[in-house]
């Protein structure tokens, strides 16, 4: 019998030097570009995509995930299971889908029903993840209750959070507003659509999510 049980040496090294594998959830309100970002990450590191995107909110109504995505920052790497979650909101009104996006009543009601289930599923996923890439729309007011609630929840669990200030390709974007709103967390301005500054995001993801950290019990 060896000095160490099978796997214990690697566990010790991991405790000392940090994580090699992490399950990362992509969270945020609807329509901030979570799936666009998930597609960007997967396209850059696996050549694959996660799912379809749409201007209609709640396009992603079931969580989707991709295992073992290796992200490299030049000096070190991290294997991540990337989970693209449905947008979290406090309300879902089927009439919004009809009046703003022209869906039929039946289609709007079906989408609304699935959207409510998606929110529940996204919240349930919080139980099993190691870190969160919180996507915010840098053209919008960052002080939404959904953002505040998600951040408070993650802080209570002591989960590492990285804020992706998305849509900086748009003229009205203001990532600085977002940085000043949440100074306690790293904020990386990006455009998931064009890929602008994605290298910086990947470097920060590897260093931030690779850190050793103890989860709090609820």
């Amino acid at each position, binding site marked *: 019998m060896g000095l160490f049980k099978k796997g214990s040496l690697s566990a010790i090294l991991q405790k000392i030097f940090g994580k090699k594998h992490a399950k990362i959830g992509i969270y945020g309100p609807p329509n901030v570009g979570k799936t666009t970002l998930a597609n960007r990450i997967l396209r850059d590191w696996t050549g694959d995509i996660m799912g379809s995107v749409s201007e209609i909110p709640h396009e992603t109504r079931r969580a989707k995930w991709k295992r073992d995505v290796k992200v490299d920052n030049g000096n070190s790497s991290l294997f991540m299971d990337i989970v693209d979650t449905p947008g979290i909101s*406090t*309300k879902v009104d089927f009439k919004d889908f009809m009046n703003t996006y022209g869906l039929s009543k039946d289609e709007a009601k079906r989408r609304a029903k699935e959207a409510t289930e998606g929110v529940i599923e996204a919240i349930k996923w919080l139980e099993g993840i190691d870190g969160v890439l919180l996507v915010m729309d840098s053209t919008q007011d960052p002080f939404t*209750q*959904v953002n505040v*609630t998600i*951040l408070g929840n993650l802080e*209570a669990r002591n989960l590492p959070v990285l804020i992706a200030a998305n849509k900086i390709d748009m003229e009205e974007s203001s990532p600085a507003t977002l940085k000043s709103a949440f100074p306690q967390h790293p904020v990386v301005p990006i455009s998931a659509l064009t890929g602008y500054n994605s290298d910086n995001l990947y470097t920060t993801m590897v260093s931030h999510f690779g850190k050793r950290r103890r989860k709090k019990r609820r």
Partner: protein
Amino acid sequence: MKKYSSGISFNLISRQKLLELSSEEKLKFILKEVKKGKILVLEYGLTPMEQTNLIEDTMKEIEQDTFIGVEMEGYGQDSPTFFQKLFGVGKRPRMTLIGPADLLHMVKKDNNMIQTKIIPGHGAK
């Protein structure tokens, strides 16, 4: 949606009442009142975990023609001072406003002010 013309009910819920309730009881109470069309001002707000659970419970309660969800606005928790930490005081929730989403709308929120508006024609007496 429920429509009433004779005013909107605005209830301030005391810290004492909220502290007497368990998390589950608190969320049940809030959702029950909000579904009646009432706007609640919680003197002692919800913890982030309770807020998340409220969102989850709200999604389960949505009825497409009568209840579309909640509008909830408040600030993050108050951090204890160094001396409060010494005496075991943790983060404390702050005042929170909760109402039916078809009645209460957030206009603007920053570090100093939460501005909301009430859409006339909805809500409870």
